[in-house]
């Protein structure tokens, strides 16, 4: 309980710091402050004064900050400088798309990476282990954008197996409700659902694979190292001398103790994962927050950058702190997160 309050406190403080940072961003961006905050280029002096009054620019910075927090909570996130579109709607459409990609990539990496890491760590220095180590070394050296381009050249242009871009064929008229494409298909009432699912999955394969290969390679390395360290420990030798089989030792002692230290390291990888997903989105025209942010920077759409930055960093932060809390709760002996060693 005490731990929970400490982490809750930490979470609140970090969120507050991030909001303060994002509040001061428009002051640092080049150009007109009013436009940077509101997204509207004032056409006349009257409109300007009116806007200034709305955003409390005529009052003290404290009032402005209070107004900023209020509008954040009321999901009144302002409009984009370019097309005056509502930022709240834009983000709530783009963010689930990113989450979807992150989720699938993470799922694939965990399902493939962790068991392989265990197997090769338990039987190290045999051919299987050697090839796994080689694969993971090569896999995590791949620049993710190049990998994606090579996948596109092979599977889309040469073999024509998979689609290049987007989330689903435009022929399927799926109404956007949740932003998660598979959920949207399930909730919609279009005639040929199985085809739609298949098409959406086809679109998912390449982006997920490009991100997941790098992440899987990292997971394999962490897991392998961790289980190798654990299997050298005294209690494993003690268990061996008591006559347990290798199987029993692994499932009773090895698994848990090897998984605990890698959890926080995996949490630190979320930021790498998000960066990779954001790059992949721009390549595959995946309508997620990364592509949206990068478009915003090309068009110098400062209100959009501010909100997008806030949302993504809040998400990453919340994930990291939550995972850290879970690890601490499961393993009270842990002092603090060990820094990542690949």
């Amino acid at each position, binding site marked *: 309980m005490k731990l929970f309050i*400490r982490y809750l406190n*930490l979470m609140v*403080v*970090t969120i507050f710091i991030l909001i303060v940072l994002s509040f001061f*961003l428009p002051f*640092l*961006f*080049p150009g007109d402050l009013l436009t940077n905050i509101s997204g509207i280029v004032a056409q006349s002096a009257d409109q300007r004064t009116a806007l200034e009054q709305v955003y409390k620019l005529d009052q003290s910075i404290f009032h402005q900050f209070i107004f900023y927090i209020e509008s954040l909570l009321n999901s009144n996130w302002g409009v984009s400088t370019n097309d005056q579109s509502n930022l709240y709607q834009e983000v709530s459409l783009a963010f689930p798309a990113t989450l979807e990609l992150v989720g699938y990539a993470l799922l694939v990496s965990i399902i493939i990476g962790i068991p392989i890491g265990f197997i090769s760590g338990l039987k190290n220095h045999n051919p299987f282990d050697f090839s796994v180590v080689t694969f993971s*070394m*090569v896999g*995590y*050296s*791949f*620049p*993710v*954008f*190049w990998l994606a*381009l*090579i996948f596109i*050249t092979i599977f889309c*242009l040469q073999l024509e197996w998979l689609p290049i871009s987007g989330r689903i064929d435009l022929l399927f008229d799926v109404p956007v409700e949740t932003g998660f494409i598979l959920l949207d298909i399930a909730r919609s009432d279009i005639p040929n659902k199985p085809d739609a699912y298949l098409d959406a999955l086809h679109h998912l394969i390449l982006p997920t694979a490009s991100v997941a290969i790098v992440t899987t390679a990292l997971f394999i390395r962490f897991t392998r190292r961790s289980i190798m360290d654990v299997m050298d420990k005294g209690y494993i030798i003690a268990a061996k001398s008591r006559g347990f089989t290798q199987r029993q030792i692994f499932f009773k002692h090895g698994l848990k103790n090897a998984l605990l230290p890698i959890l926080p390291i995996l*949490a*630190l990888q*979320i*930021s*790498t994962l*998000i*960066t990779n997903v*954001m*790059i992949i989105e*721009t390549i595959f025209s995946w309508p997620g927050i*990364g592509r949206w*942010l*990068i478009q915003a*920077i*090309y068009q*110098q759409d*400062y209100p959009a*950058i501010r909100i997008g*930055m806030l949302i*993504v*960093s809040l998400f*990453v*932060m919340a994930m*990291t*702190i939550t995972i*850290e809390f879970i690890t601490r709760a499961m393993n009270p002996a842990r002092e*603090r*997160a060990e*820094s*990542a*060693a*690949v």
Partner: protein
Amino acid sequence: MQRFNLYQEEYHPSPLVNIWIEFRRSHIALAGFVLLVLFVVITILAPIIAPFDPYLQNTNAILLPPAWEPNGSAIHLLGTDGLGRDVFSRLLYACRITFGSSLVIVAVSVLIGVGLGALAGVLSGVRSSVINHLLDSIMSIPTLLIAIIIVAILGTGLTNAMLAITLALIPQFVHQTRTFVRNELQKDYVLLDRLDGASSPRIFIYSILPGMVELIVVQATIALSVAIIDISALGFLNLAAQDPLIELGLTLSQGLEVAYVAPWLIILPGLCIFLMILSVNIVGEGLRSALRNRLHH
């Protein structure tokens, strides 16, 4: 004259030589090392090695394929790009910018990170989980996000991208240094120094730093591979180096325009980035296992 000798070896290798002996036992690590040295040589000597001026446009040979293709030419070893510029020379210059700027990024973040970490470790009293967690939090902001914010404030450019990546890399050095210094300060040899009247900066520089160098070098190799990935990714997204500069990620994104007719223009720069990162990672891994094994003996 035969001399009595208790030890079998006359020669006691220094720790550094020990690491090298361990390191070269792995052939893969050695190969990675050779590759890394090659990139360092390219970084220093690119203008001398390059057969052509990287900006020279040969309008008679536009989109020439590499020499091993049927209609390639041996004059342009790796072919030419859409403006008739020699790809081999351009790649050499691009490696130079990418690798060189990554080295600068890592050097700066090591200096700042270790400095701050030492300060945070030596100064007692500020020990609170808040600072530690705050560092963790900064570490968890994606690099691309920091880069986007910095580019939004300062504009695009190689220097700004380097600044962003440096900012993203510093916390991990602070973290490592801080933890290491905290642990060492508990030990007796530091207490001995302290009883001798050594000041905190002196203890850090003469007693703790020498033991920390290896840790920093290993951490720096990880940081170097991250820096290379990030700088080329930002270049690829047109957020880092801009056109007159030749950078691997940027070259890759320029090759995208003619990818249908000239696939080698995206394969070759990507291959360079990949080999660069791979060599850094292999050397880093080799160093880590060499250090581990040396401690075992």
